[in-house]
């Protein structure tokens, strides 16, 4: 029988993979992909709890808001990445160290 714990384990694995992506990649777009993985894992948790413990739809509404924020975040982050590329001719995050003292 598929229970709550199955979904929680999948979500935890997805979250860990997202953290791994954010920590190890140098390319800014790859880091964004890791953030999308993390947001998806959070959404999966919300929907799973909404089905198994709450029994109502509030968790799904929270997931919709998370998707809205993820879309806005992707758009603004891509804009920042593009202007960084225009400035430095590179999307390597280690190159963006102008503010470093």
């Amino acid at each position, binding site marked *: 029988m598929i229970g709550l714990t199955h979904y929680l384990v999948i979500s935890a694995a997805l979250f860990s993979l997202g953290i791994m992506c954010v920590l190890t990649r140098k390319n800014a777009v790859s880091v964004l992909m890791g953030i999308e993985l993390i947001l998806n894992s959070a959404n999966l948790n919300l929907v799973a709890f909404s089905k198994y413990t709450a029994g109502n739809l509030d968790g799904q*509404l929270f997931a919709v808001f998370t998707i809205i924020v993820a879309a806005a975040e992707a758009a603004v982050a891509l*804009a920042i990445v593009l202007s960084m590329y225009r400035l430095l001719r590179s999307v390597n995050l280690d190159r963006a160290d102008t503010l470093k003292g």
Partner: protein
Amino acid sequence: MNANLVSQGIFYFFAALTLGSAAVVVFSRSLIYSIFGLLFTFFGVAALYVFLGADFLAATQMVIYVGGILVLLLFGVMLTHKLYDLDLKTETFQVIPALLLVAAVFGTLILAMTRTTWFSGAVRQPEPTTAEIGKLFMREYILPFEVASVFLLIALIGAAMIVRKGAE
């Protein structure tokens, strides 16, 4: 009995699809492979939403993530690399410390999840959710709904401002 077994098999198939393609996203050297891995991860998560009885969310996931965010990421890759740069490799660094840290985080999460006895209320039976979600948005959640729409407008204008040529 037999139908139960089949649905379990399908569930494990989609779980494996989600996690396998997420691993491709994280460990692949090629950016294009990463993006296509992300595509299958989003499909897998949408299928898991269907298993959880969230049909509206599964459709939203398809439309916004696959149709919107993924295309945006592809644009990001294509616009920030030379066109003749066919392989689009990306470097990784600090793999071993990151692996240790992630293993610790994952272990802690699994331990916390399996040790906790979750409150188990009435399991919601699968039924169409779209009308119910619409009513909730227009009643209890009207303020967050409006704030989200203004937030999207702000993000739209802000993103356009940032990439505009000669903005500085």
